[in-house]
């Protein structure tokens, strides 16, 4: 079992690629940098493929497979080993991360071909792969946190890749700081976990939890704290504000980090900790509520954005909400399924957007596009496929995953009507704004100067990944298809052991396989499908058939329009309520008072005391002999007095 016994190879490859490119790549030609970076990530993917093959040969009692490499730290009872584990969930995540990562690396060679800092980009990208894989492979909370923080770091570095541009640098900072808030909650959660279980190792925690029950209040606290980390990292309400700004980074970065992998870390974490969450229903409810509200809320903002990448950013926030909704209602497998399909179609959407931007000479405003359908056909078709997937049109990947989530919300063990309603409404809006994007960008008359912009299709190293991802966006969801025709959902079945090994109660009896036709009909004639098609039709009406309708609607619902167009002023509210007071405190209290007066004052004060007292003492050397004589006498008096005291005479 070469790979399984040496899991660290999967981590070492991208790390080596990052180090080589970062340290040596500055003077290398682009081809050399490419070979190192693409080579590293391709080898990683091959290693993962081999790992999967070996995994399938493992006996079930050896899963999860844990590889313990060295003891990282021991502080009394607190012990952290650098240990990696592989179970079914890990396998899914590894495949998604390495496969999509590899495709995006290849795409970047085309997209970033004319950019400066080429080697730096690929160094960071490889580094990101390293940290993400660490996060996914981790066997305990601390190693996962290393990966967690590491991807945050790479996100900051990559968002602010064009660091000379102020808005990009600010966006990087905003991302880092906002996720930091979540990370603080996560850290406290880890501390609570350690306090409760005396260990931060997953298997140890889960076994201990199954054997000795822990108070529900404590579990709820832990889960909610861990979830705040997910809220930050996966951009849910209220910590989502960094993700739209993160679009300042290059488009491949948006695709990889802010669509396919990093932002899904929160979902992965919740799924990984499912034994804890399953025993804390209140926490699950919180997760589901946050997910559902975010899904709907973010979709409303996406309705009115004009920047093509911003629409996709809000769409990502919204889809992440769906994943959390899935986990929150107990359908962990559905949440992960949606994570996987989302990686495919959202990654594809971003890459296509990059292709459009590349074609339009770096224009990102949809209002200045139009009629690109015939000019960049490959991009158009792949983007259309991705849009069909995300909208949940039957047959495409997104349909299967979104449908499973909404079904769990409707009739699963933790079902909730309002949450289901929010999910369906969000699906409607999703379909609408995504098709709005397609129609504005690819249909209609060109709204730009055709002589100034030379629209051209992207080179092969960009279009081939698009086509591969389009293929996955169609067929990637078909693991679950057999369920509709009387078979079983392969995906959920595969992931089942992860979610049932330490589950609190016996899983509900598998629904008797309904007859083929009933299941299929039930799936097709359902609300999600209806609203998806509805959204498509309304978008067609608004943007193709009668383009004045949006303007009229905006005028008549002016207040609402302004509110949503300005993203509900959330950024402004945060700035006023949180940022400005903090800055004020930092400047006026911490800086002027504590730093300048107290700390500097103390240090300078010591120096001043020394100097002043020295100055006074210096005056003793007056040169006047009589005063010297007087001092001698005074000294003699004191000395005699001391002697008297010592010798004890009265």
């Amino acid at each position, binding site marked *: 079992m070469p790979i399984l016994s040496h899991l660290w190879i999967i981590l070492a490859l991208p790390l080596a690629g990052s180090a080589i490119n970062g340290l040596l790549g500055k003077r290398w030609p682009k081809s050399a940098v490419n070979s190192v970076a693409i080579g590293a990530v391709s080898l990683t993917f091959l290693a993962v493929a081999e790992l999967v093959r070996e995994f399938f040969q493992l006996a079930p009692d050896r899963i999860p497979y844990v590889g313990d490499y060295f003891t990282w730290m021991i502080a009394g009872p607190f012990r952290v080993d650098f240990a990696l584990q592989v179970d079914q969930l890990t396998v899914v995540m590894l495949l998604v991360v390495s496969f999509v990562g590899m495709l995006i690396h290849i795409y970047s060679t085309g997209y970033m071909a004319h950019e400066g800092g080429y080697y730096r980009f690929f160094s960071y990208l490889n580094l990101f792969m390293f940290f993400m894989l660490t996060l996914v492979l981790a066997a305990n909370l601390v190693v996962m946190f290393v990966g967690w923080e590491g991807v945050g770091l790479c996100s900051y570095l990559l968002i602010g890749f064009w660091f000379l541009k102020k808005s990009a640098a600010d966006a990087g900072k905003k991302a880092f700081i906002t996720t930091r808030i979540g990370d603080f909650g996560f850290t406290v959660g880890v501390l609570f976990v350690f306090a409760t279980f005396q260990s931060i190792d997953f298997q140890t925690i889960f076994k201990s939890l199954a054997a000795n029950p822990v108070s529900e209040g404590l579990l709820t606290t832990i889960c909610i704290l861990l979830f705040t980390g997910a809220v930050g990292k996966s951009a849910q309400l209220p910590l989502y504000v960094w993700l739209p700004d993160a679009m300042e980074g290059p488009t491949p970065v948006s695709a990889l980090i802010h669509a396919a992998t990093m932002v899904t870390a929160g979902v992965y974490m919740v799924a990984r900790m499912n034994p804890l969450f399953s025993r804390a229903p209140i926490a699950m409810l919180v997760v589901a509520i946050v997910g559902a509200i975010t899904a709907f809320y973010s979709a409303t903002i996406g309705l009115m954005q004009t920047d093509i990448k911003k629409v996709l950013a809000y769409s990502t926030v919204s889809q992440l909400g769906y994943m959390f909704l899935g986990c929150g209602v107990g359908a962990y497998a559905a949440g992960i399924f949606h994570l996987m399909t989302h990686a495919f179609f959202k990654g594809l959407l971003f890459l296509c957007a990059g292709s459009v931007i590349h074609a339009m000479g770096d224009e990102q405003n949809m209002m200045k596009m139009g009629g690109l359908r015939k000019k960049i056909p490959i991009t158009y078709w792949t983007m259309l496929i991705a849009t069909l997937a995300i909208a949940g049109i039957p047959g495409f990947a997104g349909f299967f995953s979104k449908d499973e989530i909404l079904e769990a919300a409707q009739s699963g063990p933790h079902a909730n009507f309002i949450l289901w309603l929010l999910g369906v409404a969000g699906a409607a809006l999703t379909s609408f704004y995504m098709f709005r994007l397609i129609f504005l960008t690819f249909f209609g008359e060109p709204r730009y100067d055709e002589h100034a912009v030379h629209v051209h299709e992207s080179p092969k190293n960009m279009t081939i990944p698009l086509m591969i991802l389009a293929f996955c966006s169609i067929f990637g969801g078909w693991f679950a298809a057999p369920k509709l025709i009387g078979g079983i959902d392969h995906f959920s079945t595969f992931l089942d052991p992860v979610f049932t090994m330490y589950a609190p109660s016996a899983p509900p009896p598998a629904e008797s396989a309904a007859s083929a036709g009933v299941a299929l009909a039930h799936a097709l004639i359902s609300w999600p499908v209806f609203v998806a098609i509805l959204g498509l039709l309304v978008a067609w009406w608004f943007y193709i058939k009668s383009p004045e309708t949006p303007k009229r609607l905006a005028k008549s619902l002016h207040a609402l329009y302004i509110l949503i167009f300005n993203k509900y002023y959330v950024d402004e509210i945060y700035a006023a309520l949180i940022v400005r007071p903090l800055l004020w405190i930092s400047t006026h209290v911490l800086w002027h008072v504590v730093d300048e007066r107290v700390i500097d004052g103390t240090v300078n004060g010591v120096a001043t005391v020394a100097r002043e007292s020295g100055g006074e003492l*210096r*005056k003793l*050397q*007056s*040169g*006047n*002999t*009589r005063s010297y*004589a*007087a001092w001698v*006498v005074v000294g*003699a008096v004191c000395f005699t007095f001391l002697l008297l005291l010592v010798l004890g005479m009265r």
Partner: protein
Amino acid sequence: MIVPVSYYLVLSAILFGLGVVAFVFKRNVITVFMSIELMLNAVNLAFVAFARAHNQLDGLVFVFFVIVVAAAESAVGLAIVIVLARNRESLNVERVNLLKF
């Protein structure tokens, strides 16, 4: 009536104290030197008194040496005074003020 030794000691103390007063108070360099001699004499008296009290001669030996050293010291000291007076035209101890900060 016998004079107790402590009386001699008190006398010695008084003379010493007066010597100190003169040391601080007087402005003529030579007078300051003389006050030092006065102090030394007072100490000699104390030594002799203690020698008497213990009936040992060692105190007297010490007195002997004090006198010798005082002699040497006055010789050198007065030589310095002469040089000072030559350079400064004044015997005021307050004019000897070059050793300042």
